[in-house]
């Protein structure tokens, strides 16, 4: 018994060393360079072991994306059908069809070899405002990034997205703004994107106040879902897996003690 307890107490520092090693390496790859301000740390419903998306926030966020962001940005890896899938905004089948049908898609060739236009369907990706990044750059000065994965491809993640959206302010007097706009949270502070949101810009049907902060929060929430659409499934399965593993480790531990009993 004593020996068994001793052996388990030796497994603990092992896990601790592993954890320290990880935090040492993963936590701080060179990110806090000059001109970078730590993003605002917000609470999100999808954080934590049981975290899920807020359906209403996702639906409002989709509206903000569609009416504001999509004018310049693509979101090429998200399809209309995803809007109706579990773990997302969960629009009804009819709503998804209606939303998709708002766009026109070039399809074909048909039996005569001609291209034709048809209303959008669930299988279609969200439309891109420009045919290619070059066209976007030619029109806007710089190609706006695709939004599908932005919540995962930027250090600071979804907090960073929110911070940039609310981070427009007057440039400090000693700051030389040579191009674009001053943004407190954007690396280097000079961002090409004009402030995209203003109070009251998008009509919210559910009565939520449509302030810049609220719209920024909702659209960031939506972009997190766009980047990680299986998050709810992952959290659910993870909990089951951990329960299983903890129980199994308990069974194995007592089995091991029984096996080794004659040796101590």
């Amino acid at each position, binding site marked *: 018994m004593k020996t068994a307890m001793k052996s388990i107490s030796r497994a603990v520092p092992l896990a601790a060393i592993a954890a320290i090693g990880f935090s040492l*390496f993963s936590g701080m790859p060179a990110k806090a360079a000059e001109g970078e301000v730590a993003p605002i740390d917000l609470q999100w419903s999808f954080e934590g072991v049981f975290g899920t998306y807020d359906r209403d926030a996702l639906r409002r966020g989709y509206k903000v994306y569609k009416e504001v962001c999509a004018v310049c940005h693509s979101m090429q890896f998200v399809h209309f059908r995803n809007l109706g899938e579990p773990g997302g905004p969960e629009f009804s089948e009819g709503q998804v069809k209606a939303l998709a049908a708002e766009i026109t898609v070039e399809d074909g060739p048909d039996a005569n070899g001609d291209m034709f236009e048809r209303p959008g369907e669930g299988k279609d990706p969200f439309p891109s405002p420009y045919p290619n990044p070059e066209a976007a750059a030619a029109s806007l000065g710089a190609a706006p990034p695709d939004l599908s994965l932005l919540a995962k*491809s930027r250090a600071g993640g979804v907090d960073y997205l929110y911070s940039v959206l609310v981070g427009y302010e007057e440039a400090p007097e000693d700051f030389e703004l040579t191009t674009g706009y001053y943004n407190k949270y954007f690396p280097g502070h000079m961002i090409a994107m004009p402030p995209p949101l203003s109070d009251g810009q998008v009509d919210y049907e559910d009565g939520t106040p449509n302030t810049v902060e609220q719209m920024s929060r909702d659209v960031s929430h939506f972009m997190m879902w766009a980047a990680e659409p299986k998050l709810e499934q*992952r959290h659910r399965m993870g909990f089951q897996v951990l329960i299983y593993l903890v129980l199994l480790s308990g069974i194995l531990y007592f089995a*091991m003690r029984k096996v080794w009993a004659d040796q101590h």
Partner: protein
Amino acid sequence: MSGESTYTPANGFTRWLDARLPILRLVNDSFVDYPTPKNLNYWWTFGAILSLCLAVQIVTGIVLAMHYVPTTELAFASVEHIMRDVNYGWLIRYVHANGASMFFIAVYIHMFRGLYYGSYKAPREVLWILGVLIYLLMMATAFFGYVLPWGQMSFWGATVITNLFGAIPVVGEALRTWLWGGFSVGDPTLNRFFSLHYLFPFLIAGVVVLHVWALHVTGQGNPAGIEVKDPKKDTVPFTPYATIKDGFGMVLFLILFAYFVFYNPNGLGEPDNYEIANPLKTPAHIVPEWYLLPFYAILRAVPDKLGGVILMFGAIAILFVLPWLDTSKVRSARFRPLYKQFFWIFVAVCLGLGYCGGQTPDKILIHVGDGGFDVTDLSRILTIYYFAHFIVLLPVLGLVEKPKPLPASIADSVLPGTRQDQATS
């Protein structure tokens, strides 16, 4: 230690098979009756954990390859297809991506275990060398694999590493072009990296077989660092004693693994790799995955590019000759009071190099006036210490150190009250 086979076929079929292909005898002698020192601690479960890691990587990798497209045009999109549309594709990819990190954490613990307990000393030199070879193959495999998603770090990491070969005098440029299959990292590079990424795990599996074979010839080392004298008193059969203990260790390890896969799947990766590769846009900081950071720090510590490449590969190459650099006859650090301290300093130096590899080289750590002591300075000191540990300390320590008395036998070393290092192990 492998000794005589104790296998007796139980029935007609196994007798028939044993006379033709004694595979059940092999399994029995290797994993059932195999005599295992009875004083092994949990650091010895990492061999089994590593086998599990290799199996997980191969199985998930084969499934991923069914959906992945190795062209620069489609690679990134095919990974997103796996994440979004393939049934449980997100799970398989997150297991594979985090599995690589888990594999390395396990291999580092396994290697430091070997360093602490002197597992590389006679007669286990070949066993150790095969292990270092596996580690080298793992790093190559991980590097190839990291290029495949074709994100920004994939592309720029591949560019930085392949450019290192350009530093080789005379043939460097030609060699680099040959590796690329063109004049920059592009389609041919991605395609061959995919091919090699699929090949190398099977090379690893082959060397693992040799590693286990060598292990079963010499027998396992043990925390006391003394050989088995009386198998009856000093050893227990592998099954059930070691199998159940390894199983318990594996499940504890899987809990850590599952935490990362389900609750922090991108915590060990670089955010930039979720941005598609763009040869016209260099990321602000190009950093490799965490498990290669110490070597990256050594590379950057040297002002001369070729010198950096030589030292970086030298840092691994020196492990191959380690058995002949350590002059001490005593294996286990338990009985080597001086070596034990230097071992922990060495661990700290490796972690410090890892830290340096993740920082910008000109980041100032201690401000003095306008300048100060920066990451490059620290990397240089740590790099010198890393090599000095092998070239100066290990040969000298064995000569000047006065080891503690060794226990008479393994059985003695596990009896309560006779262990020398109760307080420190």
